């Protein structure tokens, strides 16, 4: 299911949503991150790393970006277990916990999504600019893009896991 979700989002981002950027480089969303963030926190670290790498490969193939997303996806996949540990509740994750608003709460969801988006955009910015003198100028657009990606992921999340749906399912 996770793989299918990643493939679908890679497809949509590459062919339909890549131009959804209302303020140009200041708001460049990475929709596919949402699929990666739906990996359960209890999942194996290798799975997170592999799926992060696979997501990057998919995006690079689909968008022709020559390894930029591979690097960023691998960085995020490698740091995702640490992020999950960082945002873990005091008593730890339960076996039935899903990374959704209903189970983990809004602060967990917003915090994790923003952190992941920031890491991904920072890695992407580094491999896109490469030269140190270009990096300070790219920091602010990276930050705003991370915020915009967070918003997009939350919108997607609310669309798929809407509160009314949660009530009806429960």
């Amino acid at each position: 299911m996770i793989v299918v979700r990643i493939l679908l989002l890679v497809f949509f981002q590459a062919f339909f949503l890549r131009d959804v950027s209302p303020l140009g480089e200041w708001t460049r969303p990475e929709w596919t991150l949402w699929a990666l963030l739906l990996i359960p926190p209890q999942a194996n670290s290798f799975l997170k790393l592999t799926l992060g790498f696979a997501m990057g490969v998919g995006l690079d193939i689909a968008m022709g970006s020559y390894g930029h997303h591979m690097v960023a996806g691998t960085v995020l996949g490698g740091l995702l277990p640490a992020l999950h540990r960082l945002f873990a509740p005091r008593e730890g994750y339960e076996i039935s916990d899903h990374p959704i608003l209903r189970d983990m709460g809004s602060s967990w969801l917003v915090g994790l999504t923003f952190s992941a988006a920031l890491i991904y955009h920072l890695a992407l910015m580094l491999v896109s600019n490469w030269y140190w003198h270009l990096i300070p100028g790219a920091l602010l657009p990276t930050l705003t893009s991370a915020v915009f990606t967070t918003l997009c992921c939350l919108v997607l999340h609310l669309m798929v896991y809407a509160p009314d749906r949660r009530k009806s399912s429960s």
Partner: protein
Amino acid sequence: MRNLWLLLQRNAFTLAFIALMAVSLSVLLRNDGAARSSWFKQTGAISYMIDHQRHGWSNYLRLAEQNAELAEENANLRSRLLSMDMATEWVEDTVRHWTVRSGMLIKGPDGKPRSPSIATPGLNGGIETGMGVLSGGAAFGTVEEVGEDHCRILTLMHSGTSWSCRIGRNGPVASLGWDGMDMGLLQLKDVPRHVQAVRGDSIFTSGYDLRFPPDVMMGTIFDVERQSGADFMSVSVVPTVDFKSSRHLDFLVHQADSERTALSSTEWQP
């Protein structure tokens, strides 16, 4: 091996992360020109720094070896300098009435025990029998016979004669000759067993034979052999003059030669 396996297992995630990052970066560097140039710029600077540091350490570690090489080279140069000082060219001695006339060697010694050497000038150039001859400031021989334009020289490399010499500037007087065997070695005769002589000592003219002034370089001691039961030791000497390459000669002229000859003869009465 088991510990290594455990270590790998413990760090498997980190290793997998590094491997995937390496794959990603290699793809990126292969396809992105800007990334590639920046990467090589950064890694080039780092590799230069590492290489520079390594070179510095390598030089530091080789200091002892280089120091030994330099010391050896220094010793060799000092030795050469010393021998050059000793073989310094003879300066015309006007105080003691010695002057020189230049000449040219036409035929040098050929290694045979009694081979003659021929030079110019002869009588027309003021050359007389019995004059000492120098080559490069060192003793070469003496004029044996004089013609109009040429003269015959009895060199140190003639087995039929001997030369009065001194071991060192203030050492004992001995007789130098050639046994006709090896052209590169002369023999010191009549050196008493107790005399201090070691390899490297210089041999100078004594001046007693009236053909050369004293302290003209003749050679250097090559070997000293003290045979048991013998009163004299056998000393071999390397001549300073290279008889195979000598060309320019200096004929020694003493301004008061007739007076010396008269004084040295037994018939002279004051």
